[in-house]
């Protein structure tokens, strides 16, 4: 790096130190100390208590299901978008990204209103004498919220990866005798894999750590690991256990980042 240009990164460096490095160090400090300031692993190990294990397990399960659902919705959508000509697809991409500009909290609250026992959806169902939908405050509602909020993060990297594939590479596979299905599995899918990997980590990590979606759509009854950590900080005022559990969660995040870095060596899937 050119030394003369180094000062340009000054503002960001200042930002990073103040709001990323220092807080991170504090989380680590709180995570491995008790209230007297003495070293302990108790906070970290508290994850093994049944209620914490249950929250962590449920978090992993729901974020895994959400990631798979996002993938199932996103891949066909992305490949339709990538197959369109420029004028058509930029409009559809715009429509698709539009909700992302709306605040995340607002969108989740909107789902709460829609799904409520006397909410919009149930009013409509009742009007047509159909059985009402009772998924608010259940894990189904949380998964719905996760998929709704994180779907764009799956579509865009896959769409990018698919757009990068040279049409002639696909033509070449056809030319060499591959039918449509063979071309997809041997050429298109492997070449779009970096986008898939990047999409998976961009959905899985935020889904794993969310506490807002589960708060709003789970009615506070369903605890994910994010909720447990939040409660330790806000209600129990026990920063030590909260930090300890955060460290455990960080390990899972690091694992998924390392896995995606290994699978996507060239960084092709990154946005």
């Amino acid at each position, binding site marked *: 790096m050119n030394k003369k240009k180094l000062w340009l990164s000054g503002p960001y460096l200042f930002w990073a130190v103040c709001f990323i490095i220092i807080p991170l160090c504090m989380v680590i400090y709180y995570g491995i100390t008790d209230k007297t300031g003495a070293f302990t692993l108790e906070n970290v190990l508290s994850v093994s208590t049944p209620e914490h294990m249950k929250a962590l397990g449920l978090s992993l399960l729901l974020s895994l299901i959400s990631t798979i659902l996002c993938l199932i919705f996103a891949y066909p959508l992305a490949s339709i978008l990538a197959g369109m000509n420029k004028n058509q697809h930029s409009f559809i991409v715009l429509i698709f990204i539009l909700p992302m500009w709306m605040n995340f909290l607002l969108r989740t609250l909107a789902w709460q209103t829609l799904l409520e026992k006397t909410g919009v959806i149930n009013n409509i169902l009742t009007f047509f004498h159909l059985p009402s939908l009772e998924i608010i405050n259940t894990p189904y509602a949380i998964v719905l919220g996760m998929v709704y909020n994180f779907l764009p993060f799956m579509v865009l990297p896959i769409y990018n990866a698919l757009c990068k594939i*040279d049409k002639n590479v696909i*033509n*070449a596979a*056809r*030319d*060499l005798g591959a*039918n449509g299905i063979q071309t997809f599995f*041997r*050429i298109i899918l492997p*070449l779009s894999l970096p986008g898939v990997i990047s999409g998976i980590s961009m959905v899985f990590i935020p889904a794993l750590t969310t506490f807002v979606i589960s708060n709003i759509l789970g009615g506070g009854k369903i605890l994910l690991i994010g909720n447990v950590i939040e409660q330790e900080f806000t209600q129990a005022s026990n920063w030590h256990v909260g930090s300890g559990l955060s460290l455990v969660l960080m390990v899972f995040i690091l694992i998924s980042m390392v896995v995606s870095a290994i699978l996507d060596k060239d960084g092709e899937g990154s946005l």
Partner: protein
Amino acid sequence: MSTKLIDLQHISKSYGDNLILDDMNLYIRENEFLTLLGPSGCGKTTTLRIIGGFEKADRGIVCFDGQDISHLPPNKRQLNTVFQKYALFTHMTIAQNIAFGLKIKGKSKAYIDDKIKYALKLVNLDGYENRTPDSLSGGQQQRIAIARAIVNEPKVLLLDEPLGALDLKLRQDMQYELIRLKNELGITFIYVTHDQEEALTMSDTVVVMNQGYIQQIGTPEDIYNEPENAFVADFIGDSNIIDAIMVQDELVEILGTRFACVDIDFGTNTPVDVVIRPEDIELVAPEKGTIEGVVTHLIFKGVHYEMEVLANGFEWLVHSTILVPVGTKVGIHVDPFNIQIMNKPESEDEEVAVFDE
């Protein structure tokens, strides 16, 4: 050599309002090296893509070995394509790239391994099996693309400007390589290029195209020596294209001066275009030439000098190995058989193309 292996009949194709090909008829004989030559947008690549099955013609049929294949997808056609930018599979090794077509066809592993070895040897890249496409140079990638196509033993190989991205020296080497490959394999090549030198060097038959119409089909010699219209004359090599009047058989009036020529059957006093290649113009002593002029420009081009001679109000382009300094008075002499008479263009596509450069 007389059987029609591929026969295009009344092919038309347009994109929206843009007419790319209009009622094109062309056949390709077995074992022929045929080149589709023309400026960009002339329809040559579209023609190739229609033969390959990547585009469907709006009208007309494609026959292969006497059978209509117009509706077959590319994977059902007995031909293979070498694409413009190679289109190698970057997530596979070289060996996997070459094996792709054979694996799809379910060939045995031993057969495939043999074929990979054979193909790599053929393109002079033995030992590259486990490399990845990204680690090869453009020329090497091009050879792999060719190897990947020919292991399938196609009856016809389609090549879409395969040398376009290579530098001059490599391009020339690859031209010889392609001729050698064609002779060794004995398959039909259909080659698309906008490079007239490439077309003349390699082809048995050159098809010159412009604006969706075939301008001339012939051997490289025919195309160069006897262009049928101003477009072909101008596109193939340098030329002097001059308005003239065919006074009678074997006599043409160019810029007010009468020249003897060898062409007949143009009628009397017919307006025509004449083509005179710059290397066919002899600069002689002023009194010995048919017309007199003055050298106005001189450029050294390596093999020859390129000169412009102003005579009868026209700048004559002259190539000569003998230097004549600027300002010298010279006579222009052209042998009768070096004057090529052409009918005036009947439509826009036959006219000299104007390129924005």
